[in-house]
């Protein structure tokens, strides 16, 4: 399984990411997910969220997740970009791409990866009003 992890303070450039997409001939499904900062956080209006990461552990935990993902589904490739630092409302903080032979495993793997990210990857958010 090909894997790419980018933790960055720079805005997520979807066009650039899509231009680098590679799909093997036997693959039939590509799932993309974009997580976007909402205007409302815990019922309060906000302007932005600042993401903080324990970077060394983030890399290690994603490696463990990708290893597990590879065991569970026949994924061809996974790419994940997570912003850190200040992300304004309506801007993406997370971009995920999963390429698999069929849509079922692509959707399932993408959903699982994001659920696990929110459970074990040491990134925190601090909203700004």
């Amino acid at each position, binding site marked *: 399984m090909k894997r790419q992890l980018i933790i960055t303070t720079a805005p997520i450039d979807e066009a650039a990411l899509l231009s680098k997409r590679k799909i093997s001939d036997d693959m039939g499904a590509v799932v993309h997910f974009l997580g976007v900062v909402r205007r409302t956080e815990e019922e309060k209006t906000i302007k932005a969220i600042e*993401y903080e990461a324990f970077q060394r552990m983030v890399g*290690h935990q994603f490696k463990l997740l990708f290893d597990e993902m590879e065991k569970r589904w026949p994924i061809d490739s996974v790419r994940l970009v*997570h912003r850190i630092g200040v992300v304004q409302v309506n801007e993406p903080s997370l971009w995920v791409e999963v390429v698999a032979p069929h849509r079922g495993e692509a959707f399932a793997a993408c959903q699982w990866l994001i659920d696990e990210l929110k459970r074990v990857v040491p990134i925190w958010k601090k909203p700004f009003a």
Partner: protein
Amino acid sequence: MKIAVRFYSYFKDLTGSAETTETLPPGSTIADLLKQLMARFPELGAMQNSTLVAVGVDYQGRGYVLKEGDEVSLFPPVQGG
């Protein structure tokens, strides 16, 4: 033995610092370390059950026996995405 401890997210605000060092007897566990830290930083007490603990870059449970040189990180539930 001396154990280096780092705080992340709002634990830095609760303790007023990003890192500290605790001295513990050999054979001490993470539970022992937490007990000592809660006494020193009572603000962490309310978060006791939900506090996540890592040694190096791996999560560890309360029964983990600490070793000299371990780098312990304490933080609240994660919120990525």
